[in-house]
């Protein structure tokens, strides 16, 4: 754990000190580049990475399925659809955010409704989420092609997810939902831990598994929707990082949760660093890097898991 925290600090330090403008450390410390660009960018990446990884783990626990993430459940793509719809009407940013939040909550509400109307299994709910995800993705494609008001390059940059922020707007916007979901998942620790083992049969353990699932899913959705609105759907962190942290911090759920916060932040800052240092000329969104690194990483983990 200590090594991970030290690594995180080291990578953060690298991320604030390296960049296209090559400045001496003292000069850098007094410059706007540090205070208005690199520091907020690193903080945003840390916050986003940590929350995405934790939310990924929470959904994996609640659905007892290693593929469940807010993304596979359709939270991110319904938020994207909401944001895109608002963008194509040329609405202001605050309305775009609101629309993204509204759409993702509506998506989850739809799943919850299906769950309460009929006693469906958590696997079925996950599959419903996947179809919601695909439906939103295809609607997004339709909008992309048909909407005239849309700035396509801006939209494409946004849809891959990016942490290139200026100033502290994003950090301030994200800090509250992040704190809520982090605090809630550590404070509630016991019910999700029991759900991860006993599932819906944990009915005599002093809590209602369905209520816990709704509560955590609601706050996960809010946190992820805020992230998606501000930064775009940054892919793969929620899916891959929890698997890493499971491998490293075996058998202790609290350590795994903490590990997700640290590793999530580490991975996203690292991706941002690689992006800015190695591909500085291209101006790639960071989501491309996380997906490009995340996909093979997941494949390797699953391959090794099968070998064991």
């Amino acid at each position: 754990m200590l090594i991970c925290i030290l690594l995180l600090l080291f990578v953060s330090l690298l991320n604030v000190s390296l960049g296209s403008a090559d400045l001496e450390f003292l000069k850098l410390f007094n410059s706007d580049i540090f205070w208005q660009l690199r520091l907020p960018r690193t903080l945003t990446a840390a916050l986003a990475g940590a929350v995405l990884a934790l939310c990924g783990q929470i959904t994996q626990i609640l659905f007892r399925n290693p593929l469940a993430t807010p993304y596979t459940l359709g939270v991110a793509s319904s938020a994207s659809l909401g944001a895109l719809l608002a963008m194509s009407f040329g609405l202001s940013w605050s309305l775009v955010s609101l629309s993204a939040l509204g759409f993702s909550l509506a998506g989850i509400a739809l799943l919850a409704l299906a769950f309460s109307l009929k006693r469906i299994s958590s696997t079925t709910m996950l599959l419903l989420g996947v179809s919601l995800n695909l439906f939103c993705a295809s609607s997004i494609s339709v909008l992309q092609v048909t909407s005239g008001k849309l700035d396509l390059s801006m939209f494409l940059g946004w849809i891959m997810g990016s942490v290139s922020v200026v100033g502290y707007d994003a950090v301030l916007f994200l800090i509250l939902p992040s704190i809520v979901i982090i605090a809630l998942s550590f404070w509630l620790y016991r019910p999700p831990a029991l759900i991860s083992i006993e599932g819906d049969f944990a009915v005599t353990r002093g809590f209602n598994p369905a209520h816990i699932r709704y509560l955590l899913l609601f706050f996960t959705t809010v946190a992820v929707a805020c992230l998606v609105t501000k930064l775009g759907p940054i892919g793969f962190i929620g899916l891959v990082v929890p698997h890493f942290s499971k491998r490293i911090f075996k058998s202790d759920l609290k350590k795994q949760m903490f590990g997700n916060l640290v590793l999530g932040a580490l991975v996203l800052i690292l991706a941002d660093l690689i992006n800015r240092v190695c591909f500085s000329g291209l101006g790639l969104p960071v989501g491309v890097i996380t997906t490009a690194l995340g996909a093979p990483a997941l494949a390797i983990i699953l391959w090794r898991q099968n070998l064991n």
Partner: protein
Amino acid sequence: MILQTQNLVCGFNKSSPVLEGIDFSVAKAEIIFILGPNGIGKSCLVQTLSGVISPIAGEAPHLELSAMERAKLASYCAQEVIESSDLLVENYLSLITPTHKSLFDLVVKELEIKPFLSKSLIKLSGGERQRVRLGACLLQDSKVYLLDEPTNSLDPKPIQNLSRLLLELKELSKSSVIVSHDLGFAINTGTRFIGIDQKRILFDCDQSTLREKKLLDQLYSVNFNWAQVSDSRWALC
């Protein structure tokens, strides 16, 4: 009475109830076995009693309690096996509340869980996992235990240990409601037997009535011979 139901109708689907008009109550220090052929609705009954599924109609006042109060009243062990979780057995057991040290020691000793306390759940064998699941249910300090097929994947010795443990817990005035197809285990552990057939309670009696009236023969359509092994032990053949 610890637990009571009146005219309870249970099932997974409102239009086709599995059980109807179920009236029964659980008193202190009873070990009640729910018996009946496969697919007759035994699991459905304990799932309703524990709160996994809601009753279609009828009364069961304990289901109105808050989740916390219900945990003090009942602890449920489902038939379904644990899915692969990599938590350690001791971490899992430490999540169970309310419990106290003497109960923990008794359960861990009788179910012989100690050797794999520091193993992860995923690495346990089927029988070991079943013992951990039973342990997690029984060490919750509740008044009644609802066990669905507790002897699944257990060897003869752990079954004997479980039987002894349930009787020891009965001495602590705790009750159990057990669904089981293991009749040898049932007749040597139970104090009361409820037979279910055709959606209803067919009989509700003690062991000697069960034996003398040949109620099991009627329930399972098989001819059983009761052989006395020792003062208090019987075998069915």
